[in-house]
Each structure stands twice: as structure tokens, then as C-alpha cells.
């Protein structure tokens, strides 16, 4: 180490860290190598503008794009027992957890929200792959139960976006128990006659696939998402042969009858709206963007009232 790295580097870092670090301005598409400017990339829902490769998207960004006007209310999820097994590998589980919380700014690996999509009230739950690979532990179990209970209480459909490396090993058998546990949550929805739509995103694997992710009324996947029980590496080791191109990818599963549809992220919202409104016996959604409230043509004698309403809202804000 010389004086340059000791002295100059920290200064440069401090200059940049207050604003945006250069790395965050650009994202390189892992599929085609195109450098994507972050604004454009975010506007395109984290899909490569060049090759349509779907990259991970955190639940908050997904919900902001999914819900009308980006407005949603979080559904409270109770925190489970902290570090139930007192688990320690090379790191302690609570330390891994803290690092994940710091890195993501989230409490855990699933976000549950309620709001409207295409003016259709729904409950949505999304798994956060950036939080310990989205792994399913007791919290994810709690989140799915909270989502199902809220859906039943408000008589809304549940849309679940799955993304996980599997079960949370650090919770051992208790993570495995979330398989039957979340299955009970799915049964609550079915018995209440509410639609349960699963959107499988990259990657959905292991115990997650073998429970709530494969029990939907409708299964939609994002293009090229890896969806499997056993991962390709484990299978190659077992059968000692190379797997075919596209094996366990969304399109492959569609061909093998495990999915209803493979849908581009850009079209997901309108497709969900269409399906959910039919399943719940509602009128077709209004096509295209809904007019903003102030543009709604009103009868002459209602104009004053509408104007007052808007003003009041401004005052409150």
C-alpha cells in the first residue's frame, strides 16, 4: 500500500459517495453486454432495451410500476422468532441477516402490499431475490399468510411474484415447514373463492417451487426465468450428462405443461388485470392509460364540486 491508496483514494470516494457512484449510472446487460443508462433501464422495468433480457427487480420497484399511479399500502407482516436455531456456519445467521438488511434496506425477503391495478383491487406479494437470495424462512411464511389473510378479509385476489434460491438453510427444518405452512395459506384463498395468480420470476427454485409457487390458479412466468426443483448443476452431477439448451427455463416449462403463459414484464400488468377481472366477473378494463382525475369531463354543475375537492386535497398535502 502506498500513499496514493492511503490518502487519495478515500478523498475521491468521499467526493463521489455523496452523489451517485459511477457504477450505479450504468448497468451492463449480462446477456448481450449492452451498457444501459440507469434511468432508461429503470423506466424499462429492468429489462434490457437491446435484447429484452429480464434482470432482477426489487419488490418496491416492481410495485411502483405495477400499482396504479405507483400507489400501494404495505401489508404488515409479523416478525418471527429471531435466529430460531442459533445457526452459525462461517458467519452467524444474525450477522448475515444484518448485512442483508443493510444492503437492501428491507426487513426481510418478501414485501406484501395492497392497492389497485387497472382499478382492480388486489393484494400483491413479491419475493426479494436481493435479500439472501429471496430464501423462504419463517418470515416469508408469515408474509404469505399475511397476504392470504388480507386477501380473504378484503375479498381481493392475490398476485404472488416468486423469486428464490429455495429454503432458508439457516432456519433448518423450520424453513422446510414453510412448504406445508404456505400451502395452508393457498388453501385459504381457494376456499374463499379468490383467484391466486403466481408470476414466476428468475430464479424460482427448490422448496419454493415445490409449494406455493406451483399451486396457483394461473401460472405466468417472465421470459427465460429459471424455474426448477433441483438445480441444473445438481442434475448434471446426478445423471452425468449435459442438459439441453433452455432446460428448466420458462419457455421449456411452458412446452412441458407446467405454465399457462410466458409474458414480458412490460405486458404483465395489463395481462394480470385482464385475467383477474375475468376471474372475478368484472367488466373489461378500460384500455390504455386512464385519464387523470382533473381531465375527466364533468357535467357543468359538478365542475365546481370537483374543483373544491381537488383544492381540499391540495390543502391537506
Amino acid at each position, binding site marked *: 500500500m502506498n500513499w496514493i491508496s492511503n490518502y487519495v483514494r478515500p478523498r475521491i470516494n468521499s467526493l463521489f459517495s455523496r452523489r451517485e457512484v459511477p457504477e450505479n449510472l450504468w448497468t451492463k446487460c449480462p446477456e448481450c453486454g449492452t451498457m444501459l443508462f440507469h434511468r432508461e433501464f429503470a423506466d424499462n422495468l429492468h429489462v434490457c432495451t437491446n435484447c429484452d433480457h429480464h434482470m432482477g427487480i426489487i419488490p418496491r420497484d416492481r410495485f411502483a410500476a405495477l400499482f396504479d399511479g405507483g400507489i400501494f399500502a404495505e401489508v404488515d407482516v409479523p416478525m*418471527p*422468532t*429471531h*435466529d*430460531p*436455531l*442459533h*445457526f*452459525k*456456519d*462461517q458467519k452467524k445467521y444474525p450477522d448475515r441477516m444484518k448485512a442483508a438488511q443493510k444492503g437492501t434496506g428491507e426487513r426481510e425477503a418478501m414485501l406484501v402490499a395492497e392497492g389497485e391495478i387497472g382499478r382492480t383491487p388486489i393484494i400483491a406479494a413479491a419475493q426479494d431475490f436481493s435479500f439472501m437470495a429471496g430464501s423462504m424462512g*419463517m418470515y416469508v*411464511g*408469515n408474509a404469505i*399468510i399475511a397476504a392470504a389473510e388480507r386477501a380473504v378479509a378484503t375479498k381481493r385476489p392475490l398476485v404472488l411474484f416468486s423469486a428464490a434460491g429455495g*429454503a432458508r*438453510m439457516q*432456519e*433448518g*427444518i*423450520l*424453513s*422446510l*415447514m*414453510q*412448504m*406445508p*405452512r404456505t*400451502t*395452508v395459506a*393457498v*388453501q385459504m384463498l381457494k376456499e374463499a373463492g379468490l383467484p391466486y395468480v403466481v408470476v414466476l420470476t428468475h430464479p424460482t427454485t*427448490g*422448496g419454493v*417451487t*415445490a*409449494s*406455493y*409457487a*406451483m*399451486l396457483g390458479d394461473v401460472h405466468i412466468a417472465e421470459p427465460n426465468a429459471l*424455474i*426448477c*426443483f*433441483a438445480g441444473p448443476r*445438481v*442434475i448434471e452431477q*446426478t*445423471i452425468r*450428462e449435459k*442438459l439441453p439448451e433452455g*432446460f*428448466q427455463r420458462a419457455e421449456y416449462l411452458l412446452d*412441458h*405443461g*407446467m405454465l399457462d403463459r410466458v409474458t414480458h414484464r412490460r405486458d404483465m400488468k395489463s395481462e394480470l388485470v385482464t385475467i383477474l377481472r375475468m376471474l372475478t366477473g368484472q367488466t373489461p378494463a378500460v384500455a390504455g392509460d386512464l385519464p387523470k382525475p382533473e381531465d375527466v369531463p364533468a357535467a357543468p354543475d359538478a365542475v365546481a364540486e370537483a374543483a373544491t375537492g381537488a383544492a381540499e386535497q391540495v390543502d391537506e398535502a
Partner: protein
Amino acid sequence: MTNYLEFEKPLAEIEGKAEELRAMARANEEMDVEKEALALDRKAEDMLGDLYKDLTAWRKCQVARHPDRPHCKDYIEALFTEYTPLAGDRNFADDHAVMGGLARLGDVPVVVMGQEKGNDTKSRIERNFGMARPEGYRKVIRLMDLADRFNLPVIMLVDTPGAYPGKGAEERGQSEAIARATERSLNVKSPVISVIIGEGGSGGAVALATANTVMMLEHSIYSVISPEGCASILWKDAEKMREAAEALRLTAQDLKELGVIDRIISEPVGGAQRARADTIAAVGQALEVELTALMKKAKGDALIRDRRKKFLDMGSKGLAA
């Protein structure tokens, strides 16, 4: 012949010596070795007791996987009468990794099923080492349908390293089959009892262990991942399986403490592989007691409600802080 486990080596030496002495005596009538041999027997007996008194988690894994342990087929043949195997998933194939059918436990007609690992090279291959494919789980679903329709209790014997990680298994929907089997178990209106008799490997085990009463044999294991798999992921070193086995809390004793299982069935000293008949009898007794209790306690919807509640409660478990 006894198949000794690695940690039983000192025991193997003593038992070997006693056997050698007796063989020598048989060859030479003048020799009297009985006193010495008996002393060795006693020493071996004490050692066996000591070894099995406090098995580490990794040793438990080895015992749970011991090839001489009684397997599903042994229990079904010994404990049930009129066993009538039923085959096939009505879709694709009959998976020999899962066996099951109608039988009587005492006088009670039941549906019994479980994973069978096989006991020699030929049967192991035929049974795919107890690793089921989707057809196996779909057979489970079919048998559950049957039990539900005719109000027959369901008894499941769990013994699998896990669901089979193969190409065809994935193509035919391993995940979906496991998920549906678990879902089906939750909806059966007759009593459902599971016993983990050896290895309870991950999702492949859960599909046969979503029961009103879940029991484990004393030296069986039940885990979200194999210790070897966990070690290679979290320690980046598959040789750290001892540490992983410990951390995962996969022994029957750990699971009882965590409130995940209901009852531990004791094994004779030295494990089920040394006293197969006694172990099978102990499982039979536990099954009769638990089935009688369940049949008395609740019926139909109440059994479904209890089963669901049992698994809903799996969000508030854990060791004391």
C-alpha cells in the same frame, strides 16, 4: 455379518476378536476361550451403549442411512395384514421408489405408503434408492384420494434422501407433484400419521410428512438439506458435513425440542440395524397408540382443521433465546 459404521471401528475390533477366539476354539477342542470371549462380549456391549448414548448429529446421519436398517417394505410386511399394493399414477408410470396400498393395522383398514430404498444392488436400482419422481408423488395423491373417499386412515413411512434430481423428473413437474401431494395431505378428512424411519430428505420427505401426528425413530433425521449439500453451499466445503449436521438441528431430539414433531420412538441400543424386529415392533406399537388416539379425538373437518393449525403454527417455533 454386521456392517460397521466408521465410528464403530473400535467396536468392530473387539467383536472381531471375540469371534476369532470362538472360531479357534471350534477348530481346537482342547482350547477353552469362553471366559475370555465373554469378557470381550461384555466390553463390546458397554462400548456399544457408550457409543449410542450420545450420538453426534453426523453420526446420527450415518445411522439413519445404514443399509441394514429396516426399510418401508419391512415395516409394511411385519406390521400390517392383507397388504394389497396399489400401483401407478394413472398418468405416466408406476414409481417403485414409492410403495403403498391397502392394508390392515390390527383390524383397522388403512392406506399405507412410503419410500422404499431397497436392500441390495438390484432392488436399490429398481427403487431408485428411495428417490421418487413425480409419478411417485402423484401415486401418493391418488392413494390419498382413495383414503379420503372411503374414510381410511393414512399411514406414511418416510425414508428418502430426497426427490430425484433428474431430467425427466423435472420435465414432468417434480415441483408441482410435491406441492400437490402436500396440498392433498392437508385436505384428507381421515387421520394422517407419518413416521420418519430413516432419512427425511427435504421437500421429497415433506410431501409424505404433512400429517396430524409426525413421529421419528430415535436415530432418524429430518432436514431441509443434506449436511453435505449444506456444507458445500455455506462452508464452500462438502467435507464440513459434521459442522453442517450439527448446525441444521436435524436429529429427532432437536425436532422434538423445536416442536416440529410429536413423538420419538426409541430404538434398541446400537440402533435399528442391530435389532430390526424390536424396532419394527416399537413402531407398530406407536402407530396403534397414535391412531387410536386420533380416531377418538376428532373426525372429518376437525382433523383437517387440526392438521392445518399444526402447520400454521410453524411460524413461531425456535429454540429458547
